């Protein structure tokens, strides 16, 4: 008792803070584990699909490399969605079979427990009857034990879940029976420990509602709950109900026992035995209530109850067995079904693969045949075109040869015709050549005539100019004659003549004319020569008036020289000039006189100028005359 209390206390004190912390820690732990697991597994799959992520994962994530190695060793990288589905199906089937095994086992255990509990109940009953028998009369005393006895079997009948609450009530009601109950509990199962029962008994209702130990009580599939308990979805109700019921019963004991039948009337249809049992209990209760002294007679009632309970247990067992059989059958059927399906799928896949392969082969053969045909066609086409080309070329060559032959024949014919026609044509050609020659001659003659006429004109102009300029007895201008001569010579384009006439035309000589040779000669001998001889003795420089006067005075005393005399003095030069003038050589006379220096040259200036002009004109005319002579010579 004390130990129990201590245990209770301790568990209560420990249990109060524990769940919260534990739950938080656990939640964190599970969450972390799940997240980490998900991350690693997911990362592995992602990295098999993504190369960059693979690198990152293997290099930077701790344990990533080993994870990937593990995954590769187990062939995750070849894993597909179908594999996963298959695997999950297998897992499901395995799990299912495992659970069904478990259920079987549990059911077996439960049955054992039940048997034990029944034994216990019987022993308890026996004890209770014994206890009741020694104290039959005192109603106040006796009333609690039967109640407890009555309640005791109930939890015993309930295989797992309802033991604790009932025990708690029992504990409350009769501490004497506590030991007995504890023993019964210990017998009921190895799992519901007395400690836990007691710990949970401290907070019965709440523990019942959310007790983790409920897992011991989960109903096997297809099993009915114990009498008085339906299978309502919210377990709260079902569990509160019995508690209430029990409480009610316990509370009613001293006062009025409520009728159980109406309370369980809702089950009468589904479970007639329960309603029957309830009726029996009610009967017992009413009997006890009406006749407390007749508690001893309650044995019959109890017997009845026991019988009922046995039948109930039998029924339960039968039902359970049925359910199990049904479930197993179902499971087997399902397994078969799935296996068949799997096989079918495999076969289908195999068929599909085969058919695909055949299709591919067929397609490949067809393609090959097609390609071969296409190539053959191409080859034939090419051959055809080649033969066509060659034929065309041959045709062309034949045509070309024909043309060549034709041409040769034509040439031969032509040659013949030419030979025939040769004589006449040659004569004609000769005639035309003669005509051309004649024409040429005529043209040449015309040119010749033209040239002659031109030269004649030139000569005429030249003679006119000569007569008017040089050989005229008086000085007269000859511009007109010069112009005519220039026009005539311009047609001949003789550069020499043109130059000579140009130089002559530029000066004013043609306007004033030139002195006749007779005039020049007379001018020299009568005027120039005596005056020059008077200054013959004057020095070239620094000659004063006295030297002039002396020279003039002495000139009268000197001998006059004549003829072609040698000497550089003025008088000798004058004699030579006079001689040349007598020889009509104006050029030489002018050359001689041009050598004089000093005052003599000054005196000779005008005469020399006139002589030079005449000589220039004479020279130009001589050039023109020479050219004219040359031209006339060329023409002839």
């Amino acid at each position: 008792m004390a130990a129990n209390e201590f245990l209770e206390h301790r568990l209560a004190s420990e249990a109060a803070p524990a769940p919260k912390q534990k739950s938080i820690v656990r939640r964190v732990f599970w969450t972390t584990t799940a997240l980490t697991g998900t991350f690693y597994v997911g990362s592995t799959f992602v990295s098999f699909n993504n190369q960059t992520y693979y690198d990152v994962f293997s290099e930077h994530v701790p344990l990533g490399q080993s994870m990937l190695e593990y995954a590769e060793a187990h062939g995750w990288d070849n894993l597909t969605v179908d594999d996963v589905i298959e695997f999950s199906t297998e897992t499901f089937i395995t799990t299912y079979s495992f659970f069904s095994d478990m259920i079987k086992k549990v059911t077996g255990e439960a049955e054992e427990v039940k048997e034990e509990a029944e034994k216990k109940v019987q022993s308890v009953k026996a004890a209770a009857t014994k206890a009741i028998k020694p104290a039959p009369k005192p109603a106040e005393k006796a009333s609690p034990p039967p109640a407890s006895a009555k309640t005791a079997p109930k939890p015993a009948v309930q295989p797992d879940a309802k033991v604790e609450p009932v025990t708690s009530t029992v504990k409350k009601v009769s501490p004497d029976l506590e030991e007995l109950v504890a023993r019964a509990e210990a017998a009921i199962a190895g799992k519901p420990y007395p400690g836990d029962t007691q710990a949970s008994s401290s907070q019965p209702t709440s523990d019942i509602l959310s007790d983790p130990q409920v897992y011991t009580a989960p109903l096997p599939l297809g099993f009915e709950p114990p009498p008085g308990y339906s299978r309502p979805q919210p377990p709260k109700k079902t569990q509160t109900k019995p508690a209430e019921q029990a409480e009610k019963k316990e509370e009613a004991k001293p006062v009025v026992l409520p009728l159980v039948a109406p309370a369980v009337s809702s089950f009468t249809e589904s479970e007639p035995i329960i309603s029957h049992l309830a009726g029996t209990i009610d009967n017992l209760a009413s009997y006890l209530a009406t006749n407390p002294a007749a508690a001893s007679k309650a044995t019959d009632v109890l017997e009845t109850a026991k019988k009922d309970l046995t039948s109930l247990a039998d029924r339960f067992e039968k039902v359970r067995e049925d359910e199990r059989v049904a479930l197993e059958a179902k499971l087997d059927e399902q397994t078969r079904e799935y296996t068949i399906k799997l096989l079918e799928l495999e076969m289908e896949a195999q068929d599909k693969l085969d058919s695909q392969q055949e299709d591919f082969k067929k397609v490949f053969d067809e393609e090959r045949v097609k390609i071969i045909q296409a190539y053959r066609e191409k080859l034939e086409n090419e051959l055809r075109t080649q033969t066509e080309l060659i034929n065309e070329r041959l045709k062309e060559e034949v045509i070309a040869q024909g043309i060549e032959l034709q041409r040769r024949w034509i040439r031969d014919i032509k040659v013949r015709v030419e030979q025939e026609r040769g004589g006449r044509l040659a004569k004609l050609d000769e005639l035309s050549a003669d005509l051309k020659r004649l024409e040429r001659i005529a043209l040449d003659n015309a040119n010749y005539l033209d040239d002659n006429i031109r030269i004649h004109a030139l000569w005429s102009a030249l003679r006119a100019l000569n007569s008017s300029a040089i050989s005229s007895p008086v000085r007269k201008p000859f511009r007109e004659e010069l112009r005519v001569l220039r026009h005539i010579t311009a047609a001949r384009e003789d550069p020499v003549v043109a130059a000579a006439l140009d130089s002559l035309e530029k000066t004013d000589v043609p306007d004033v004319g030139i002195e006749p040779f007779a005039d020049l000669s007379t001018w020299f001998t009568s005027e120039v020569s005596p005056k020059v001889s008077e200054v013959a003795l004057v020095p070239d420089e620094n000659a004063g008036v006295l030297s002039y006067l002396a020279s003039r005075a002495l000139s009268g005393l000197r001998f006059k020289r004549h003829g072609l005399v040698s000497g550089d003095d003025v008088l000798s030069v004058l004699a030579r000039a006079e001689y040349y003038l007598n020889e009509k050589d104006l050029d030489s006379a002018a050359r001689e006189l041009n050598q004089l220096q000093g005052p003599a040259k000054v005196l000779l200036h005008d005469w020399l100028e006139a002589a030079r002009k005449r000589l220039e004109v004479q020279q130009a005319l001589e050039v023109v005359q020479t050219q004219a002579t040359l031209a006339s010579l060329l023409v002839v």
Partner: protein
Amino acid sequence: MSKPSSSEDILGQKYDRCLADLLVKSGVGFSVGVVASVIFFRRRTWPIALSTGFGAGAAYADCDRSFNPARIPGTRVLSQNEAATLQGNKSN
């Protein structure tokens, strides 16, 4: 002849002008000498001769200059030979 002024007549013209000039200047000198001798020198002859000589001298100088314009008092015109010898002396 038909030519009024020809190059061979230059000398004659010069002679003519010199003579005219001499006559004029001698006459002026003579008359000045006569007046001077009558007025200042109580009819002596030498003033007349002197002034006539002045006039004739001036006429001669002018005539000489007309024949040789390069003759200027204090200067001498060198001939080419003289100039060459002078150059040779200078360089030596």
